[in-house]
């Protein structure tokens, strides 16, 4: 049987190559879609992106510059506006490093340890993604409000949590907790721990193994997680709205201040501040693309 088959077919390298090409073509045809299908799906997704993302973003800038550059710049002379920007930066500066540490620790646990309740931990990490931000804010009111669980004690000791910076930071930390952990965990899992084991065998201690081996490996996904976390921390509205008290010059973050300005018919200032958040979103997008590219490359290099 084998002999006959060999006789009927061209022999040698050419034959093999021809067979491979044929198989590839067949495979490509079977998995490729007809032209009209491609056109519809592409139009749909691009059209959707344009109408619901690009257009609104462009409108934000158009509204912000409606009265020109000078009016735009003058917005940032206002004390309440600069305070809201400053407050937002403060919140992000506290919340993002905290969540980087928490997120890394959680990712490390899930990727590297086997323990009872690991499934529960991975579920809990994602909890803030399913809980509505309003609820995230309300739980802190229930906990720290004057009539809350710890409220009376806190008020006696004159410790302000809600309607002040700590409450805003807490609710922001809650809402942005999953980002670093969720981005880093898969990468940690994919890369395994062989290199760490090698480093430890060669006499490195745990700390330097972490900084010199693990962090460089996951660098790009970590950066991506951090900027994602930062974008959300600066843009969070719902949870912060509940615990803020909306005091201008004190507890209004940028998103809350935008609402205040809009409600006071100050449209140019409202959209000027909004344009800063939109810029942040664009910047996040750029960094995200860069980091995914670098992360993919790192993974490919590791696989080779």
């Amino acid at each position: 049987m084998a002999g006959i088959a060999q006789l009927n077919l061209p022999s040698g390298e050419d034959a093999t190559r021809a067979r491979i090409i044929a198989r590839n073509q067949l495979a490509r045809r079977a998995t490729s879609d007809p032209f009209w299908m491609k056109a519809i799906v592409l139009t749909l997704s691009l059209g959707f992106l344009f109408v619901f993302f690009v257009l609104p973003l462009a409108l934000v800038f158009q509204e912000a510059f409606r009265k020109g550059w000078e009016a735009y710049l003058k917005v940032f002379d206002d004390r309440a506006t600069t305070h809201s920007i400053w407050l937002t930066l403060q919140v992000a500066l506290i919340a993002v490093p905290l969540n980087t540490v928490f997120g890394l620790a959680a990712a490390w646990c899930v990727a590297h340890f086997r323990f009872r309740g690991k499934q529960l931990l991975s579920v809990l990490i994602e909890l803030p993604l399913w809980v509505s931000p309003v609820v995230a804010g309300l739980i802190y009111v229930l906990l720290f409000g004057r009539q809350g669980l710890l409220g009376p004690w806190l008020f006696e000791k004159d410790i302000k949590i809600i309607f002040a910076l700590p409450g805003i930071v807490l609710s922001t930390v809650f809402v942005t907790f999953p980002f670093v952990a969720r981005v880093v965990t898969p990468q940690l899992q994919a890369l395994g721990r062989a290199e760490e084991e090698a480093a430890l065998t060669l006499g490195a201690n745990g700390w330097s193994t972490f900084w010199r081996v693990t962090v460089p490996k996951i660098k790009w996904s970590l950066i991506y997680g951090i900027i994602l976390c930062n974008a959300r921390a600066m843009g969070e509205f719902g949870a912060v709205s509940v615990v803020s008290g909306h005091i201008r010059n004190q507890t209004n973050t940028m998103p809350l201040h935008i609402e205040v300005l809009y409600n006071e018919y100050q449209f140019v200032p409202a959209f000027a501040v909004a344009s800063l958040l939109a810029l942040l979103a664009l910047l996040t997008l750029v960094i995200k693309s860069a980091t995914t590219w670098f992360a993919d490359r790192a993974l490919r290099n590791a696989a080779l």
Partner: protein
Amino acid sequence: MSNTSPASRSLFRRDFVRRTLLASTLLLSASLAHAEEPKLLNSSYDVTREFYKQVNDLFVPFWKAKGGATVQVDQSHGGSSKQARAVLDGLEADVVTFNQSTDVDLLVPAGLVAADWRTKFPHNASPYTSTILFLVRKGNPKGIKDWPDLVKSGAQVIIPNPKTSGNGRYSYVGAWAWSIKNEGGDEAKAKDFVKKLFANVPVLDTGGRGATNSFAQNGIGDVLLTFENEVHLTIRELGADKFDVVVPPQSILADAPIAIVEPVAKKHGTTDLAKAYLDYLFTDEVQEVAAKNYFRPANPEILKKHAASFPEIKLVTIDEILGGWKKALEVHFKDGGVFDQIYAR
């Protein structure tokens, strides 16, 4: 990957982490140690933003001229009841300036406001009054003149949520009052009238300003029911060419109760300042500002002076219609109350 040796990279990294930590600690302590000028926080309702901005700008030099420090008055605005809730939950407002007495009364059991707060300032502790008017689209295409037209004309009516907004509650009571006074004082008829009215309400915003935006900015509805001052402010801010005011023959009297949140002011050491601030609201200077913002000044002489701004209108009170706010809340606005019954769909 770069060519730097692992050792120097890790050194750099450690240094970076240390520096970031240091920087954030410094930032934090700097923000905590912010220079302390005396501050006053006024928690107010949604549509007084512009009024208190003007008042605060006047109060700062006034207080300084009296020998006080340069004071900073901060504002927080939202639906009146939502604001009261926040103060109850621990928002440290030194003074509250709401739009109905129940929101102040809410703070009494918690010891935040004295039970006799009504007697602490002139005019029943209400520096001005207001009422509910109608704002319609230019030319009044639906021909709305009075409360029954809101039901009959098939117009869409914008009213903020009566459960979270005093503004919405006054509109609700205004409609109830019209029926009581014009349909024979029958409660079942009044309930039916209000039910028909709210069947025409497409959105319930949580505060008065949100409702104004729904109507004026987002173009929803044919008529907006809101405070007299908000009606005029909307016209001034968003164009006299777009809207007309409709003054119904009868509407509801809305007062604007104010009070000191005593434990908070005591804690902040601002009791005197808070008292001076609220007293200041009754001076001729601020009464004039109130009139210019279309709030009906409590001072009868100043009200008379601005009579042209305030059309004659028969004003009924919540006490005569529903036996006071306390009872109204109990019967109409608590969970499962009349409002919930009529708004259930």
